[in-house]
């Protein structure tokens, strides 16, 4: 296998990383909203969030992608397939991240909040300065995990015709008859990307205030 082929795979992997990062960020924004709904005491807010989470965690991502890709045109929305892919990945990761965030907020120690009340912080200040940083610290490992899962899951958007890493490997394997080398190389690139993400996650975790040293 020539270096030219590997270079093409590397170029395609930029697409993989971009799609994953964008989806993680959009998913995180939706997840904040969802976890807020889950933690509210109003039933009409909790139930839709529960159903959303149950659906997107209970249906395979591939099926979600097929649904979104084929359904959007039917209801009259025509978007490029990359947008459909990002929507699918974002909604799916939002469901998982919402559960993580809910867990994070639920495990903020009560004593911490009480002592903040004692020293006279307002509820808004307690939320911004105590609850959010503590919950984020608690959910960061899960977030890194989720990022790795999405990087791997983004290989599925190849089925809606987006030429990211997996699709590039597939196309090249078809034209060069080197499937073994190409898929192994693609796997290696995924492995390296995920390794970097895990490493970066560990570094951020240790650099956050209040980290054990």
């Amino acid at each position, binding site marked *: 296998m020539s270096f030219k082929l590997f270079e093409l795979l590397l170029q395609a992997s930029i697409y993989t990383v971009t799609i994953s990062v964008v989806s993680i960020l959009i998913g995180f924004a939706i997840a904040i909203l969802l976890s807020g709904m889950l933690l509210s005491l109003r039933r009409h807010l909790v139930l839709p969030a529960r159903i959303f989470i149950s659906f997107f965690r209970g*249906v395979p991502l591939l099926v979600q992608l097929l649904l979104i890709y084929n359904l959007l045109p039917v209801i009259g929305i025509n978007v490029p397939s990359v947008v459909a892919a990002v929507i699918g990945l974002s909604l799916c990761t939002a469901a998982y991240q919402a559960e993580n965030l809910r867990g994070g907020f639920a495990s903020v120690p009560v004593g911490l909040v009480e002592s903040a009340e004692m020293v006279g912080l307002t509820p808004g200040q307690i939320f911004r300065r105590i609850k959010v940083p503590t919950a984020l610290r608690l959910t960061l490992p899960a977030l890194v995990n989720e990022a790795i899962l999405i990087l*791997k899951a983004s290989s599925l958007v190849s089925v809606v015709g987006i030429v990211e890493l997996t699709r590039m490997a597939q196309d090249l394997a078809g034209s060069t008859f080197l499937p073994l080398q190409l898929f192994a190389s693609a796997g290696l690139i995924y492995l390296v990307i995920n390794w970097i993400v895990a490493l970066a996650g560990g570094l951020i975790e240790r650099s956050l205030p209040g980290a054990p040293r």
Partner: protein
Amino acid sequence: MSFDINVLIEQWPAIVSGAGVTIMIWVFGTIAAAALGFLLAVARQYGGLVVDKALGLIVAVLRGTPFLIQIFLVYYGGPFVGLSLDPLPAGLIGISIYGAAYFSEIFRSGFRAVPRGHIEAGECVGLTQGQIVRRILLPEMTMLVLPPSVNMAVILMKETAVLSIITVPELTATLSAIGSQQYAFVEALSALALFYWVLVEFTGRLGNLAETKLSRFRFFNA
């Protein structure tokens, strides 16, 4: 937008067969993955440092690469090393190996988490090694590995959909084909999503039930 359920009713033999293949792959794949994972965990625990490191590397590779890439390697790369497989066996092998990597980690943490003191206590009251394994190690481990194992079974259930890409005739492939032939994507894909949703929820509930039933073996405060 119309919703014509008759399209699906007319095709029921194909759909039932697809659902059967999906469930068959899931059940056999999960059992094979768990068995293989258990062997991996035992080998890493008792096989010495070299075996542990070598298997650890394989597990890390399997967990760090997408399932789709692994399936492509088995199905399209296999023939180049003299391993030509039909889609179905290739899919079964792929899902078993992929699942085994995760199961081995689950069992490893299970081995480690049974407190040494419980085993020593068993020795003190004169239990044989066999009794210790049967009456202390396995029950306590079962309680620990059950929740993540159910989780893994659910993940493997969802991964079966990926096998449609290498043309395994399971439900996703069947319903996608019906969707494109009859131009009934909405009906076919809704039915598909519903099938997985119900099955995954059901499996999760069943796991919770088993957990409650087995909670008398629980020794940790969680």
